């Protein structure tokens, strides 16, 4: 848990602080390139697997509480979350297994593939922001955990993205800047979801379901396949099962 000094008395400030922190930490993913080296693929894969485990755990916690508050609303919300992520995949034409490695639009259009990758990440970041916001609505502990899980995801994503951008001739500084910039929807949507919380209280189970569905589907369609491509399946299996298992065991700690 964060030190007392890192918890603001005004709840909305906590949302701002932790969602911005999660987005800003993406800069860590650009660091290895700024230092003149490229990380080994195994590191990128390990980061994806770690984020996958944490996000699956976060999705489980959000879904559990959503089902508590309204079973069918949470289920419907989960379906919408899956559909949203699915739509982002098809909209950007990046529904092949490893978009970062092979960023070519399948519809044959001449849209710039790099900007499509960026757009897709931006669309994901919006859903991730909602996840932070609704988690904060439930309680601070869960909100901080979801923000940290997404920070881990942002770092791994920034590693992969910088790898792609630098290989296409971008400078490390520009790559890092872009990696942070695409996460800006996170704090914006986190604040919006949190601020709208009291107004849309009846929608809480549905929005918890939405966040859980979007996170889980993102993990299954992006993070896990990417992790397998970058590192051994044993490492992925160990990382995902131990992190997700730990989060589920700590359920009563996070949900109180």
């Amino acid at each position, binding site marked *: 848990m964060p030190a007392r000094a890192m918890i603001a008395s005004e709840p909305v400030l906590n949302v701002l602080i932790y969602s911005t922190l999660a987005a800003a930490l993406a800069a860590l993913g650009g660091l290895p390139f700024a230092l003149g080296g490229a990380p080994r693929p195994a590191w990128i894969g390990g980061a994806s697997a770690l984020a996958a485990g944490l996000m699956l755990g976060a999705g*489980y916690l959000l*879904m559990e509480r959503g*089902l508590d508050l309204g*079973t069918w609303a949470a*289920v419907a919300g*989960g379906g919408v979350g*899956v559909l949203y992520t*699915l739509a982002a*995949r098809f909209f950007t034409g990046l*529904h*092949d*297994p490893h978009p970062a490695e092979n960023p070519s639009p399948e519809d044959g259009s001449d849209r710039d593939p790099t900007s499509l990758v960026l757009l897709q990440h931006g669309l994901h970041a919006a859903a991730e922001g909602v996840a932070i916001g609704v988690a904060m609505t439930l309680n601070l502990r869960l909100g901080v955990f979801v923000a940290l899980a997404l920070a881990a995801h942002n770092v791994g994503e920034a590693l992969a993205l910088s790898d792609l951008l630098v290989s296409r001739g971008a400078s490390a500084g520009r790559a890092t800047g872009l990696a942070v910039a695409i996460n800006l929807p996170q704090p914006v949507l986190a604040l919006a979801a949190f601020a709208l919380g009291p107004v849309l209280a009846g929608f809480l189970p549905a929005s918890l379901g939405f966040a859980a*569905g979007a996170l*889980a*589907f993102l993990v*299954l*369609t*992006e993070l*896990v*396949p990417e992790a*397998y491509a970058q590192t051994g*399946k*044993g490492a*992925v*299996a*160990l990382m*995902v*099962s*131990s992190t*997700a*298992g730990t989060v*589920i*065991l700590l*359920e*009563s700690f996070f949900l109180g």
Partner: protein
Amino acid sequence: MTWGAVLWVFTAGLVTALATGLGAIPFAFLQELSPRTLAISNAIASGLMLGASVGLVSEGAAYGTAPTVVGGALGVGFIVLGGRLLEGREVHFGKVHGAGAKKILLILAVMTLHSFSEGVAVGVSFGGGQALAALITLAIAVHNIPEGLAISAVLRPRGSSLTACAGWSIFSSLPQPLMAVPAFVFVEAFQPVLPYGLGFAAGAMVFMVFFELLPEAYENGGATTVGLWVSLPLAAMILFQRLL
């Protein structure tokens, strides 16, 4: 404690085991065995097993967190060790050879061992009061069907017959009645072991999913297809365990 009660528990356990065989039914309609079918079958089995593991971990945590963790680590170790033992050996399973046969053996081992823990869970909960016994039996029986589905989803696309799918599904649940009886009679002795067993089953299942089933699914099908076919059964399992 009467013999009648013991017989009741055994029969209840046996009925729940037989229900597992029903999971093979949807595979009667499976015609061609393309790589895509394999990917979808693996994905369905993964979703069902992940959903089951979530339930096992929550239940284990209710009995004790540390034993669940230890059990989980042992479960992971079991799959790693099992995989190593089978590596480089010529394995047959009926008409199935090679890597497919190894996967079949591993999933049967995992699901059968997991039934030991479930059997203990049944016995312990029966000890808690017989008024709920019929309801618990029904719940477990229904809950076993997706487990048969998961087993059949691994066996059938690799060439096993429908009868074999149903037979092995039932086989995998036979430890349930066998363990339910002693757990019912000696509740106090079995209760402390339960979280280890639940953790073991969850660890073995999750590791099996991410080490054996999902990599093969992504190799044979697109990430979108696999993602959808994992999340649907996963959501159904979580919902199902809640409503039951």
